């Protein structure tokens, strides 16, 4: 598996660490049910999935990757936006 880092280019998967699906967090006052769903329940789709990967052995960027979970084809990758930067504290 090779992942394209927007800064470093295409790199081997061993340089990256996986965080998980890139999910939109519920609002703070959305209630226990919404937060329970956000924290514990996952869709596990067979197909494209948005994920966070950390280019730990490279430039240190957090990258939002669109990966096909069936074929492992990397469909898109982009740097985490500044407002997403707290997605880094795994």
């Amino acid at each position: 598996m090779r992942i394209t880092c927007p800064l470093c280019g295409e790199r081997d998967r061993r340089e990256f660490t996986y965080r998980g699906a890139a999910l939109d967090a519920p609002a703070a006052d959305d209630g226990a049910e919404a937060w329970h769903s956000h924290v514990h329940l996952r869709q596990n789709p067979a197909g494209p999935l948005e994920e966070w990967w950390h280019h730990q052995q490279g430039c240190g960027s957090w990258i939002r990757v669109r990966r096909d979970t069936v074929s492992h084809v990397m469909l898109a990758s982009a740097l985490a936006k500044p407002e997403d930067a707290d997605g880094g504290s795994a």
Partner: protein
Amino acid sequence: MVELSAKTPCADLLPLTVGALTLSEVAPTVMTTLSPYEGCRDALSAALEARYGLRWPKPNRSTAKAGVRLLWFGRDMALLSGAAPDRGLSDHAALVDQSDGWAVVQLSGAGAEDALARLCPVDLRPSVFKRGHTARCDLRHMMASITRLGPASFQIMVFRSMAETLVEDVKTAMEAVAARG
């Protein structure tokens, strides 16, 4: 009183020659990471150009002038080496002294990229990775910085604590390349 003397990270380990390749330690120098504050990168680049004649490096590139090198060192980070940082730079960036923190070695000789190909999952051939190009990449599980200094010469940096592992791993790769003749 105990007499303490400064020792470089690879003092007892290098230089080393195997076949056509030589691994040697780069003379220690002042090294500082520059991390621009949000929105300050252009101002920092201008300050660097005024002081050292070097602009902020693009990703995977380095620039050098009169013994001062500016090396891209990761996202929003560059390493200034060869000169103490100008105090004015701290208006635009966080400066962190790295001088004693890294083992800096140079691998030179024809086929140096063949040895590195055994260690790094990155294409370092001269057609792709030219003089002045730099990469932050994996080197046998170590977070390395690799820069091409010339047609057959690379600078390799890893954390100082990994100096012995670095020398051991590069030496093994050099021997493997030499054994192929």
